[in-house]
């Protein structure tokens, strides 16, 4: 059994087998995994906001989908991942509260998912699996040995994507 590497909000890290990498209680944030299945190298970032260029306070690059995914890419490549092998799995972006208004501030989950997908497309990294949107929180665990992303929600049976 390997260790479970934990990342918090606006953090990123990389991971090799037999370890696994997790982030707990994703709400409107998005967990992005980049994975090279041949080298079994992976990394995860927990992004909170879609776009670093819209925010003045943007020193923490892992906080944003655009800069966070870029940095994560550099980290997995530095560890020996092969660029063309890379695939992504994403989860999160829930709308935690059932707002009736369409206030933009409150749709941040959707916007995080959109920005994540746009960034991955720009980098030509295919999304292999996703569990996004809806209205419940998720804990996710990624196992680079198998390439499986385990998603756990309250009151639901954990499942793999």
């Amino acid at each position, binding site marked *: 059994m390997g260790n479970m590497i934990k990342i*918090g*909000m*606006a*953090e990123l890290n990389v991971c090799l087998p037999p370890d696994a990498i997790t982030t*707990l*209680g*994703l*709400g*409107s*944030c998005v967990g992005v995994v980049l994975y090279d299945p041949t080298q079994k190298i992976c990394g995860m970032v927990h992004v*909170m*906001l879609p776009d670093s260029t819209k*925010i*003045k*306070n943007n*020193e*923490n690059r892992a*906080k944003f989908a655009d800069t966070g995914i870029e940095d994560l890419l550099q980290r997995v490549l530095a560890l020996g991942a092969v660029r063309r092998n890379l695939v992504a799995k994403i989860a999160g972006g*829930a709308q*935690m*509260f*059932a*707002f009736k*208004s369409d*206030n933009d*501030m*409150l749709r*941040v989950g959707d916007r995080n998912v959109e920005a994540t997908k746009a960034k991955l497309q720009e980098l030509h990294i295919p999304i292999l699996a996703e569990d996004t949107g809806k*209205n*419940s*929180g*998720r*804990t996710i665990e990624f196992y680079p040995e198998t390439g499986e992303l385990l998603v756990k929600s*309250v*009151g639901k049976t954990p499942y793999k994507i």
Partner: protein
Amino acid sequence: MAENQIINEMQFDVLREIGNIGSGNAATALAKMLNQKVDIKVPKAALLDFNELPQAVGGEETIVVGILLTLSEDVEGMMMFIMKIEAAYNLIEKLMFMQVDRNGSLDEMQMSCLQEIGNIITGAYLSSLSDLTRLTIQASVPYMAMDMAGAILSVPAIEFGKLGDKALMIEAEFGEDAANEIGGYFLLIPTMASYDAIMASLGIG
């Protein structure tokens, strides 16, 4: 206001004091609802890294009830009241004179009871803030969700995340003892402009 630092010590003290007064008002409102004496402890205020927010309520995967209101007019932003699920069960039992199935989900009546409590508690805090600052604060209807603390707190954390990497959390404890705790935590998340408006109206720039 320095860009890297959301609030200075003096501003922090002011917000904590508003927290004190607000929790006092909330406890009074709660005592009326429960028709019993409700003790309050001095609220703890802490300026936390948003990563530390879920830790403050027992960890990312702790099940909590979150009640969220959006604010408009002079102060724009959000206000959130969070309580652990045990505290929510305790409150429902006291208010509705019933036993709650602590493993099951809450029914509609119980949910709306909690929502109303959240409304009263956040209302008490907001009216203190409004009185002290003489700013008009309009709150939305309360939105409620029950889920992992990390997920619930991601909503205010994201709003705070736009300003910086810290959030002000006020822990208000009511109730007789730990076993019967009916306390919770609140978070006030003004937008940058509203934050400045609050400070300016209190005479601290």
